[in-house]
């Protein structure tokens, strides 16, 4: 391994770690979970209200969204890889849970609601 390789590896890892640190420092509590399917917003859920609902995705698949104790989590899904279920529950502004096969993104936002009124579906 040449010195250049090592510099690249260390440099890149260092930048990434700093990126994660900065990101985590700027996280405020979230207020709403915004659900988008294929880029289109289909629902906004308050983190204050516990709810369990199925979100229908792009190909007809579903992801079960659970809002509980101020957190949003995907507890069940029809996609083959179940990466979305694996992803940890989210609660802070900017955090996301993604299901790529179903093209579903659940994102936490704080403060103002979006233009959509309350809950859809």
């Amino acid at each position, binding site marked *: *391994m*040449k*010195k*250049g*390789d090592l*510099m*690249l*590896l260390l440099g*890149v*890892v260092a*930048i*990434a*770690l700093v*990126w*994660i640190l900065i*990101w985590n420092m700027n996280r405020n509590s979230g207020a709403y979970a915004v659900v*988008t399917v*294929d*880029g289109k917003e289909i629902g906004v859920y308050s983190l204050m209200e516990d709810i369990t609902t199925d979100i229908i995705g792009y190909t007809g698949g579903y992801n079960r969204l659970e809002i509980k104790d101020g957190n949003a989590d995907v507890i069940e899904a029809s996609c083959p*890889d179940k*990466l979305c279920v*694996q*992803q*940890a529950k989210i609660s802070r502004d*900017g*955090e*996301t849970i*993604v299901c*790529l*096969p179903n*093209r*579903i*993104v659940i*994102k936490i936002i704080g403060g103002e609601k979006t233009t959509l009124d309350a809950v859809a579906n």
Partner: protein
Amino acid sequence: MFKGKVAFMGIFAALAILFGYIESLIPFYFGIPGMKLGLANIMTVLVLYLFGIPEAATISLVRIFTVGLLFGNPYSLIYSLAGGVLSLFTMVIIRQIKAFSIVGISIAGGIMHNIGQLIIAMLIVEEIGLTYYAPFLIIAGALTGTLIGFVTRIVFSRLKPIINKR
């Protein structure tokens, strides 16, 4: 064109496909979309150094489409293609920098492969917030790239003399 080059390319392509298949068997994500072991990159980097850019691109595309059609779905194919193209493009450029060896190129390739997949994911679901995953993918890509790089370097050193003799 030396005697037997087509045969070598055939074997390398088959190996790349095999690696792609093995990768699909090993779960390696930790909940982060786009994270991959990058085994198939061994062949891309190897062919890049042994033969050149067109050959590496050929092996890469053959692998992406075959694995994508056989073991994946249209979505995984697009992600794979984005990652593979960005990865190869970056590796070709980085290779010009003398300070890097095969390992360094492999690190760059591994990172860009993951980042390429993340970019496509962001375009498809239209969510800029996915950049949250970027640093994790960078670290994973760098680490797997290092391992892949070591393996590729050893294989390359064994194969180069054999190729040279033809």
